[in-house]
């Protein structure tokens, strides 16, 4: 998805930020660092760093030992960066975001949209977080159900069979049977 957006970003002159949640990796992540990573990518996609962000940096750098931005600073910076240019924010596996973070994240995105409503946000996740998303972004969410399509499964199987390192054990009838049976079973899921 990110790549498709990147391909289209040129024509829309857009800037893109992504974040992938992962149960295993999320423990040490603070919400400020997660949201900060979005700002970081958006700023990288702009021709120049917005003055508001440089100023915030210079002010905090002056503090004793240098200070990290707070979540409220980060949200302001997200609002600033996303209002400079057409912006896409992609968040994968939102259901793997820690519960305490989820609310803050959705609230932050809501604030970004209020400031720059042209921003596009792409989210993937399991169905159960739908109600949580709706709670914060009521009326502003379009839903698409993702299920594996037959053609996708066949493409995937062909690609994996092609990479198979034990080709000796494979003959054309086994291959044909795999390509027939697995897509059938999956469509019954």
């Amino acid at each position, binding site marked *: 998805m990110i790549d498709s957006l990147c391909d289209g970003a040129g024509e829309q002159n857009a800037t893109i930020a*992504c974040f992938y949640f992962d149960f295993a990796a999320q423990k040490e992540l603070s919400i400020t660092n997660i949201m900060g990573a979005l700002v970081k990518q958006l700023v990288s996609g702009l021709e120049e760093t917005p003055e508001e962000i440089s100023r915030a940096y210079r002010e905090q750098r002056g503090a004793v030992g240098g200070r*990290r931005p707070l979540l409220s600073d980060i949200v302001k910076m997200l609002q600033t960066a996303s209002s400079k240019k057409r912006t896409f924010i992609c968040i994968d596996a939102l259901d793997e975001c820690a519960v305490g973070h989820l609310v803050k994240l959705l609230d932050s995105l809501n604030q970004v949209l209020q400031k720059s409503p042209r921003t596009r946000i792409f989210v993937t996740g399991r169905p159960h977080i739908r109600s949580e998303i709706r709670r914060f972004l009521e009326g502003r969410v379009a839903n698409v159900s993702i299920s*594996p399509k037959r*053609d996708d499964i066949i493409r995937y199987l062909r690609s994996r069979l092609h990479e198979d390192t034990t080709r000796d054990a494979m003959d054309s009838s086994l291959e044909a049977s795999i390509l027939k049976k697995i897509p059938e079973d999956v469509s019954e899921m």
Partner: protein
Amino acid sequence: MSQSFSNNINSLNTVNVSNTFTVADDGPNILAWLSPLDPRLRHQDIRDQRVESIGEWILQTEEFRTWYSSNAGGESDKPVLFCYGDPGVGKTFIR
């Protein structure tokens, strides 16, 4: 006239150069200050594992097209596209 015009250009250039210098100087520091994380690395992993053209159908859906091209930001605009599915259906890998 032509002399003063070229002087102006020179002075503009000087201003530009010094601006670029400040940005180039602070740029990487600002990025590091914003966050130590780099989700682009994870994105690269996923790209490497993905099979070409899987999930392209989503780009053709009405929901995606409307979401992608809408510029309005009006009342009926839906700026958030939520793609949901059970574990393993390929949400991460859609093209």
